[in-house]
């Protein structure tokens, strides 16, 4: 009776998941991934200097630099978050097997779902903290530069005797290219995409034979995921386009199996100065959560009976 009680998991699921997540986070931090932030800082500062000749009117002076800062920063964040989420997740299980940590953990009354969820949460925590730090750096650089651009524009507008409404319009236009909630939404979209990739890499790593295999397959799926919408269109519009059953079937299989990453490309619109509505962001978050839950559940389904 006592033995059965001892084998029962102690404490709450969340408590266990959190402990494992913190351990995974610490493990990854010790791999010195934060050194990348120094590279990011250089990129964020260097993007200030890509000031090519002005082809627009004087009212647009400096806008191109603001766009350059956002473009370089969000591009770097995307690359970093996707690479980190795939590689870190791909490394976790094999490393625990290699260090024999996995045996120690699984010998204890820790449900395998908690173990997997904890590991995934650790990776996501690392990606989130990294993105948050990069976001802060980008926002500071952008805020300073946007202030300089705005001062320059206001001086120009006043020197030319622009009417007050035109000056207010100019101020609003420039503000669209500075730090904004939409920009924070874009960073969140970067995180969501990385979360999907991390949970997908976790699923692959549960049946993969090596870290390399998990990494390569995950990257392939990441890139093919950007064509998924094309495949879905091929399936949905096959009748109109006069395509055969084979194309339609292939389109259907691709769109059912692969994640659709094109919807997360709203980042590009934000860089171009468009506002990202909360509704769109909420829907993207729902999709991200849906993928993460499904892939984690599927990982557990495979991992639950795996023998080590």
């Amino acid at each position, binding site marked *: 009776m006592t033995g059965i009680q001892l084998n029962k998991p102690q404490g709450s699921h969340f408590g266990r998941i959190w402990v494992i997540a913190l351990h995974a986070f610490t493990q990854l931090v010790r791999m010195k991934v934060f050194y990348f932030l120094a590279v990011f800082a250089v990129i964020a500062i260097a993007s200030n200097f890509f000031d090519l000749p002005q082809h627009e009117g004087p009212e647009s002076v400096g806008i191109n630099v603001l766009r350059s800062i956002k473009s370089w920063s969000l591009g770097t964040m995307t690359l970093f978050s996707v690479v980190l989420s795939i590689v870190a997740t791909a490394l976790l299980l094999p490393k625990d097997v290699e260090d024999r940590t996995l045996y120690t953990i699984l010998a204890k009354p820790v449900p395998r779902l908690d173990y997997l969820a904890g590991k995934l949460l650790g990776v996501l925590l690392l990606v989130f903290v990294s993105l948050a730090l990069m976001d802060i750096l980008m926002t500071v650089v952008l805020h300073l530069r946007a202030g300089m651009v705005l001062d320059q524009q206001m001086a120009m507008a006043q020197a030319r005797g*622009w009417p007050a409404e035109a000056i207010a319009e100019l101020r609003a236009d420039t503000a669209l290219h500075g730090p904004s909630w939409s920009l924070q939404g874009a960073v969140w979209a970067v995180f969501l995409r990385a979360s999907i990739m991390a949970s997908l890499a976790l699923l692959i790593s549960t049946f993969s034979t090596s870290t390399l295999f998990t990494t390569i397959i995950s990257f392939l799926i990441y890139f093919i995921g950007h064509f998924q919408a094309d495949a879905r269109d091929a399936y949905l519009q096959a009748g109109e386009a006069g395509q055969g059953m084979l194309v339609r079937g292939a389109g259907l299989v691709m769109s059912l199996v692969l994640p659709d990453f094109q*919807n997360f490309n*709203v980042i590009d619109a934000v860089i171009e100065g468009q506002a990202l509505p909360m509704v769109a962001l909420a829907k993207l978050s729902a999709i991200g959560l849906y993928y993460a839950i499904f892939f984690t559940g599927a990982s557990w389904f495979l991992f639950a009976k795996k023998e080590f």
Partner: protein
Amino acid sequence: MKNWQRNGILVGAIFVFGGLRLPFEAGLRGELQAAHLIPQALEIGTRDKIGQTSSAVALGGLRTLVATFLNLRAFGFFEAQRWDDVADTFDTIVDLAPKTRYYWEAGTSHAAYNASSYYLNQSTLPPLRRREAWRASVLRGRAFLERGIKNNPTDWSLLRNLGFLLSDTNLFPAFRNPDETFLAAAAAYRRSAATGNALPYVRRAEFISLARVTGKEREALALGRELYASKENRAPTVLLLLLVLEAHENPALDSAARAVEFFGTAQSAYENLCRYWLRTRELFPIYGVASALESLERTLAIPQEKSIFNKPLQSRPDADEWFRN
């Protein structure tokens, strides 16, 4: 449960999961495209042009970053005066970032102004080929900008720039028919002003273009009078064109007296009219200007040798003349 059963269940679950999310994702894609938050899929031609690696990256959610890299490359082509490469690169750039005004304006500027100036002044090509290359560059710049407007119909700056391009004295001979060109320029300025974001000078520019179209004098006069009602629009060119259009409407008008009314003193009226008289390059109408100048010269007792009529006029924009040698 055996392994094959487990795998079968998983595959089935993936399909069911996919089937559940498919309509939601398709709907969201439609909504995001309608809101211009995600672009249409890249054309195959664009994928080819940006190359395999860049294409993968661009499709991987870094379209604007790839566009930034290509913009740097285009700048290198511009420095080397490789105009066809500049144009091709900008075609690709705007496929990647169709909502960025800067790329449309930069691409237009390179074709219509930089490349055309090169063919006008520096090229070692024979005159006829230089002329064709110059004209092709201007037309390419216009077509590129019009594509930009199609992609961004509410962008006041792109429309304003089309007006600039069509009314530029160094460019409009490329379009052959000045009336049609000025009318198109006025239409572009009008659309720009209609967006509600344009600066006040855009309406003045519309008037200045429309006033130069033969047969549209009455319409231009109405617009001029509307602009005149607001003090901020009373720029010298606007006042002078208004005067000329009034003289066209009423040939019996005492243009000199009207000019003095506009400019306050006879001296100021004379100086402004002189400057206007000399601006033959811009193809401004000149109804009543000569008589007003004669009258003011008498009033101000300008000696014959200092008369404005003895000063050489600017040559009219004439592509035949530019490419004679």
